């Protein structure tokens, strides 16, 4: 029995009195890849940002390594948990390498990066296939390239938990599969990977567990094939679908037109 690394119980959040999330409960362990799914406005990103420590006024409890997320020192927390936002709007001309290197900020006190920082940044850029545009202005990249740079920055943090908010939205097919393959490898190395996604087929192929939200409430949390059923998808997403067996094993969701 692996003990839970990230555990939320009855976690909720309200923006200025409007409740956008309530009753989220799950215990997530190292070596898991968990997909958070649900329609727009279901509270997926909110749940993720509570876990990332960005909403300290959350309700209920959200424990990382047994301690409430809001009680963690930000710097210590950043050495454990990395967060990949949906997008990063950059005002200033930082290069990609500089953006990746920002992931090393929690590890050094001085004005300069260490040899280890450079090694980690290099490795992260290779894993996400973005070393080729390291010296380009981040703002001049395409959406998909930016997303890979932001992911590289999170990987450079060498976290134990990786939280991702729709990491493949802007990616082409090749890089979608590359990134999900990478997330699977990281999971195998013992990371806990939690990703918000709209692509149920990617969740089906890569995730072990799925947490399904609907209208701010947790609808289900369990093994992927138990949660992502045609009945649940019809109920939550209001879309008809059927499960098609894949040639290589596993299933594929085919949506009705």
């Amino acid at each position, binding site marked *: 029995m692996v003990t839970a690394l990230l555990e939320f119980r009855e976690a909720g959040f309200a923006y200025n009195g409007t409740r956008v999330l309530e009753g989220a409960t799950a215990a997530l362990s190292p070596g898991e890849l968990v997909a958070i799914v649900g329609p727009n406005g279901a509270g997926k990103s909110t749940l993720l*940002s509570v876990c*990332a*420590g*960005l909403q300290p006024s959350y309700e209920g409890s959200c424990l990382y390594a047994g301690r409430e997320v809001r009680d963690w020192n*930000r*710097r*210590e*927390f*950043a*050495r454990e*948990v*990395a*967060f990949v*936002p949906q997008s*990063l*709007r*950059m*005002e*200033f*001309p*930082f*290069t990609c*390498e*500089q*953006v990746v*290197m*920002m*992931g090393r*900020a*929690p590890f*050094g006190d001085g*004005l*300069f*990066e260490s040899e280890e920082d*450079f090694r980690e940044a290099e490795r992260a850029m290779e894993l996400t296939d973005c070393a080729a545009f*390291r*010296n*380009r202005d981040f703002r001049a990249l395409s959406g998909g390239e930016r997303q890979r740079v932001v992911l590289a920055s999170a990987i450079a*943090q060498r976290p134990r938990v990786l939280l991702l908010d729709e990491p493949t939205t802007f990616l082409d097919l090749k890089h979608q599969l590359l990134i999900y393959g990478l997330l699977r490898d990281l999971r195998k190395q013992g990371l806990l990977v939690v990703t918000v996604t709209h692509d149920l087929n990617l969740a089906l192929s890569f995730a072990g567990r799925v947490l399904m939200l609907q209208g701010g409430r947790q609808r289900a949390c369990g093994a992927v094939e138990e949660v992502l059923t045609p009945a649940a998808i019809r109920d939550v997403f209001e879309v008809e679908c059927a499960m098609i067996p894949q040639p290589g094993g596993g299933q594929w969701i085919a949506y009705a037109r």
Partner: protein
Amino acid sequence: MRGRALTPGRLARILAVCAGICLAALVVAPWIGTAHVDPRKVMAGAAPDAQIFFQARLTRVLLSVLAGGALATAGVIFQALLRDSLADPYTLGISSGASLGAVLAICFGWGGGGRLPAVWIAALMGALAALLMVIGLASHGRRVSSFSLLMSGVTVNTIAIAVILLLQSVATFGQSFAINRWLMGSIESVEYSTIAGLAVVVLPVLVYAWRGARSWNLMAAGEEWASTRGVAASRFMWRGFLAGSLITGTVTVITGPVGFLGLIVPHALRLWFGADHRILLPASFLLGGAFLVCCDTVARTVMPPVDVPVGVITAMLGGPFFLWLLRARQKRYWL
């Protein structure tokens, strides 16, 4: 230039060049002026050359370097804090508060208080009042966001400017002239003790900001971004806002609002060196200072015996220079 990782050697080379330029401006500028001064007489302390050199010119040059450096640094700080390259040291209302204080002193003819001019004391009070108002409006509990800071700062700024306009409209002709003159911003000869006082405020703030340069990089990318990379974002924003306001307010009290420099110097330096605050913060101080020294030298020599307000010169010299820089870069990078 921009892409390479920052090593101690590269930073040292860049800062050595900037420091050289700043030093050159400091050394050369006091010798330039409408009256000729003889170096031998200056060194011998003979009148009037020594007085012109040490009392009239050197103090202006030293004030320029500190004020220009502080405003450019404050520009970097506020632009990063608000993640807006159009922000400048005056966006968040501190200097308008100072101006309002000064205008009140001019309108009501407040007399001197001890050794400092009444206008300075009133400007300082005004800056403090504006600072407290922005803090009060922007804070939600102890938390703050760049949005709340921007909204409250701009509001306080607008109110202060409105009151200044009101006072100006009812002022006498003479007062109105004095108000206008103050609002244009100018460098004047001051006592060495004033320069020392300014240095005591500005230099520690600069060192403080520079030490946190990597956090400034994170902050310039976004509050969430900084927060998930180990920066206590709210606390950092408060300190940054106070640091930027402190130096902007102090400079404004002495010189009035000298425009343009705090906006343009950070921009120009980003075009040269990229967005890394480890370079940007010290370089903006050194080159912002050198730039204001040059502008003030032009201001006091171009139309003798009139002292052109230095803010006019910063805009007239800086504007075309910046456009040229932008065009040159466009050719290299975008075309």
